[in-house]
């Protein structure tokens, strides 16, 4: 129904209604039953109508402050909103004299976004209550000066006091610490601050290692480094081991990308030992650059970093440690280790205290790595009764299902489509990336929003989800993902690589050189990625005898950027159709989990337990998975009844397409 039709539907008593528009204080007369949007236009004002006035995008929201209206649709408005008079201008009929607030739209849009989007959960770091002692801690100790009557050597003298004052028995120094000890004791006039490593995951009760000794009561902090080695990017957190406080963070692309975009390419590349070494060097160079950047910013020395905890997929950890990755790839898919021994930083050449330990979080199997162990730790779902599904929407598409009783996991190799890789106009979630799109169903003209409101440079994962949903709803593509709107708009055309849809003409782009498009091939890629994830989730549920509808919460991890548009993700069948509030977007769960294990002894112990407890389900060559995958290769899904909210949206958007048969 077009806005213009509203006036002819004059089912009131034909009278004219007076509409006052604030804050501009204009007034217009509109026939009873007319649309708010008409009143606004007639007054020479405007509200955005990105979805073409279809009541889908919620962008045309205004506030009715006085008078009677009838809302045809209140999609996206909460009961609270309605209470307060918020209404969609394109869906609201005037049924009396009104006072309407037409705000500068930014304001309202901001307010609305929280509803349909799972925003990244606020805390970037999770802290435990730190009842347990940190992995590395400082102690200040005053030592009796030696004398002819007490000629105990310096080390034993210190050890004696550590045992007496702090209950730390059998503290063993590193050679570097021992070398400093005599001078520092005297420099500090027998008062020193010691840095002591109190065990590691393999031997949590010791022996204690003396890593450093400083004169007097030093104010330095003991720092730890959490590292997430992703196939595409590497993230690092620098934190205070004693307080858990996050000091700094940095991230960058993994420079291994030059040798292949996915883990398989890299495993293949690593077949020659010198290549394996090159990949190890590349990732360490990437990490060191990030560490240097943070240290420089904080004006700190590498020696202050006393521990590193690393999370990464199984292949990344193998390459990081220089282990042979070949057997991960082929049947029966065996990693070199599940739990990796802590190794001294010096053996890897990381920019930190050479004797400090580097601890890689345990992996579950060849395709479910420490990134998932870490992510799971971050979610805390293993401590709750609610059946939770945790999806890491990355290249490997790993997910975990379960609760405090049981955990099952799988990987479904979704490919990098949602990370912006591989698509003709794809880009990671950086400034200028299109992250939301609406399409007017009649003109097929798009409206888009970019990250940082910069001129568009390409389209990122969340943008593609949004775009795909719109294309389906407006019939630009059919449900099989084939471009179907030929002849309806110049934006639907046959490009060099086949049919495509133009989102932004070259002239309007940031670079100004190329149209931003989504091709049919891109769409097939996206469909495969979303199908793999949805199929993985359903097969995972079925494998334990549950239906996907039995899942009570869905936690989403991954590099989408600021948010994921849950409504659109459901619309394309990436996520199961559940109430929006059941979804939470957590951002990069791997780094957050690694940080938790770094700063919390209990957390690190849990990571081990979790890796042990997770049951791995192998999906490759599983007939059930192939079947679920094929049925998910459709928008939203072959079995549309699994997506009732999408059925409703389709019925509203394309009333002519409603099945008239049953």
């Amino acid at each position, binding site marked *: 129904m077009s806005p213009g039709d509203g006036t002819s539907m004059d089912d009131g008593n034909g009278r004219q209604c007076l509409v006052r528009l604030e804050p501009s204080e204009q007034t217009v007369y509109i026939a009873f039953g007319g649309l708010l949007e008409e009143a606004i236009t007639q007054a020479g004002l405007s509200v955005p109508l990105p979805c073409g006035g279809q009541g889908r995008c919620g962008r045309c929201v205004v506030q009715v402050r006085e008078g009677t209206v009838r809302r045809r649709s209140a999609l996206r408005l909460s009961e609270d909103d309605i209470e307060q008079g918020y209404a969609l201008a394109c869906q609201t009929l005037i049924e009396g004299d009104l006072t309407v607030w037409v705000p500068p739209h930014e304001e309202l849009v901001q307010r609305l976004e929280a509803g349909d989007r799972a925003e990244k959960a606020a805390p970037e770091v999770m802290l435990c209550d730190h009842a347990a002692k940190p992995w590395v801690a400082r102690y200040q100790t005053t030592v009796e000066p030696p004398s002819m009557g007490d000629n105990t050597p310096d080390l034993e003298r210190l050890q004696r006091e550590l045992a007496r004052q702090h209950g730390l028995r059998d503290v063993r120094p590193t050679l570097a610490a021992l070398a400093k000890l005599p001078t520092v004791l005297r420099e500090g006039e027998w008062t020193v601050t010691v840095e002591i490593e109190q065990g590691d995951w393999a031997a949590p009760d010791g022996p204690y290692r003396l890593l450093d000794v400083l004169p007097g009561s030093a104010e330095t902090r003991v720092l730890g480094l959490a590292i997430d080695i992703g196939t595409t990017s590497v993230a690092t957190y620098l934190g205070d081991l004693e307080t858990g406080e996050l000091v700094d963070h940095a991230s960058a692309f993994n420079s291994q990308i030059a040798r292949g975009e996915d883990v398989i390419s890299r495993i293949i590349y690593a077949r020659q030992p010198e290549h394996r070494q090159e990949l190890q060097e590349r990732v360490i160079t990437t990490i060191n650059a990030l560490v240097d950047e943070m240290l420089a910013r904080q004006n700190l020395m590498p020696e202050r970093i006393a521990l590193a905890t690393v999370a990464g997929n199984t292949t990344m950890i193998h390459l990081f440690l220089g282990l042979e990755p070949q057997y991960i790839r082929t049947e029966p898919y065996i990693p070199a280790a599940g739990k990796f021994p802590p190794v001294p930083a010096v053996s890897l050449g990381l920019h930190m205290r050479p004797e400090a330990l580097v601890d890689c979080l345990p992996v579950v199997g060849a395709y479910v790595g420490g990134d998932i162990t870490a992510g799971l730790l971050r979610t805390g779902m293993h401590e709750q009764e609610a059946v939770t599904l945790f999806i890491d929407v990355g290249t490997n598409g790993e997910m975990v299902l379960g609760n405090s009783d*049981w955990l099952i996991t799988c990987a479904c190799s979704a490919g990098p489509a949602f990370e912006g890789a591989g698509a003709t106009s794809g880009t990671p979630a950086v400034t200028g990336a299109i992250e939301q799109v609406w399409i007017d169903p009649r003109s097929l003209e798009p409206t888009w929003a970019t990250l940082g409101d910069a001129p568009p440079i390409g389209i990122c994962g969340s943008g593609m989800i949004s775009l795909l949903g719109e294309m389906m709803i407006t019939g630009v593509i059919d449900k099989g993902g084939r471009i179907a709107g030929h002849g309806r708009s110049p934006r639907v055309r046959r490009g060099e690589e*086949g049919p495509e849809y133009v989102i932004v003409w070259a002239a309007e782009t940031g670079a100004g050189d190329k149209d931003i498009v989504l091709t*049919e091939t891109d769409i097939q890629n996206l469909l495969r990625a979303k199908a793999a994830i949805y199929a993985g989730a359903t097969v995972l549920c079925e494998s334990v005898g*549950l239906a996907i509808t039995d899942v009570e919460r869905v936690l989403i991890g991954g590099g989408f950027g600021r948010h994921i548009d849950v409504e659109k993700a459901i619309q394309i069948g990436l996520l199961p159709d559940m109430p929006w509030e059941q979804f939470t977007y957590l951002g990069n769960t791997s780094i957050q989990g690694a940080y938790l294990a770094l700063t919390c002894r209990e957390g690190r112990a849990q990571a081990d337990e979790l890796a042990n407890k997770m049951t791995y389900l192998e999906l*490759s060559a599983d007939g059930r998975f192939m079947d679920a995958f094929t049925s998910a290769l459709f928008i939203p899904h072959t079995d549309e009844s699994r997506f009732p909210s999408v059925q409703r949206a389709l019925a509203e958007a394309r009333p002519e397409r409603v099945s008239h048969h049953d």
Partner: protein
Amino acid sequence: MALSGLAIYKMLPQTNCKECGFPTCLAFSMKLAARQVELSACPHVSEETKTQLDSASAPPIRLISLGKDGHKLEVGNETVIFRHEKTFYHQPGLIYRLADSLDDQEFTHRLDQVADYGVERVGMDLRPDGVAVQDSSGSADTFAARVGQVAGKGLAIILMSSDPATMEAGLKAAQGKEPLIYAADSGNWQPMADLAKKYGAPLAVLGAGGDLEALAALAEQVAGYGVENLVLDPGARGWSDSLGALTRMRRAAIKKNFRPLGYPVITFPGEGSEDPREEAMLASQFIDRYASLIVMDDFEPAALYSLLTLRQNIYTDPQKPIQVTPGLYEIGDPKGDSPLLVTTNFSLTYFSVAGEVEGSGRPAWLLVADSEGMSVLTAWAAGKFDAERIAKAVKAAEVPDKISHKSIVIPGFVASISGDLEEELAGWQILVGPREAIGIPSYLRQLAKG
């Protein structure tokens, strides 16, 4: 009724001690639910759990064996109504009926036909399973002599006589080969059951005209008498009567766990048809639909071969991805200089590639490499679609004999193997095709332009 993995898990110790050979208790319970392991593999289950799980996992259709050791024919133990729900486990036995009244020469000839028949198909040795000796002479001695003749052949044996005395003569002659006794009916069931006990042989219970209630009552009676290794003949014979009876029996056993009908079913397609060809077609129905023993009257190799093939087809594991046979396929009418493309043997991959090539209107050769049923990307990731395998496929399909050029188009997704492939296929030109099948028509167009 079958329990889900999670339900079983709740009964296990949940310690993940790994002694069962699985990494977690949940992994073990899932295998258990899929009947791929025995409960006894876990040393830590309580007696109580054991009893509970055992009763839940008893097969709804009893496993029956004919014969012994090397020549054992096992039937039954099915767990589903539809093959796609899991799989059909035990192929129905194909048995040929010989009347004991045939003259020596004819009997020997027919027996040898059955015993000597063997044919290979996709790597499997296929043969009929046994012989049913029908008492038509009315003489226990003749019957026994014929049975003795059969007993030396290493075939499964069915003894068909309604007379207990003749039956016993046959059982003696069968030399402990545990033949199936056919059949106990409402009149003679007790002496027949006694024989079954005495000789440790399975017993067929014959109903009348498809009356399943009566059949169930009789089976219950015989089982109660102490003979539990039963095979059922509902007595229905023609196309739709048999289909109805066998379907209802299968449903009763599996969906309702109705024990009195939870036994394998024996059928006689020859008795429900007018001529040998119809017999063979009706036998097909029985392979498709729930028979465990199919007793044929007409021995015709052409028919037997088609039935063996059908049986092999229906009893494959449907959980495996659908595969096409690796080899060189002609799309359109390719000539020696037509392009050569290679892909994997996952059926949907094959269909989409073949479909696009066909749609392009340009004839081409399509080489299907054995990737164990995986799609291009999955196979590549798992090392099942690498240079070595492609080179092997080229050789196995004798490609150079059929094609006059030496260039091969690989899927765009595996562009990275070009180098390796150049090494494996010395002197060949490796072309990287499109990533998606839908790109094939335009790719072939460009290729033709040169």
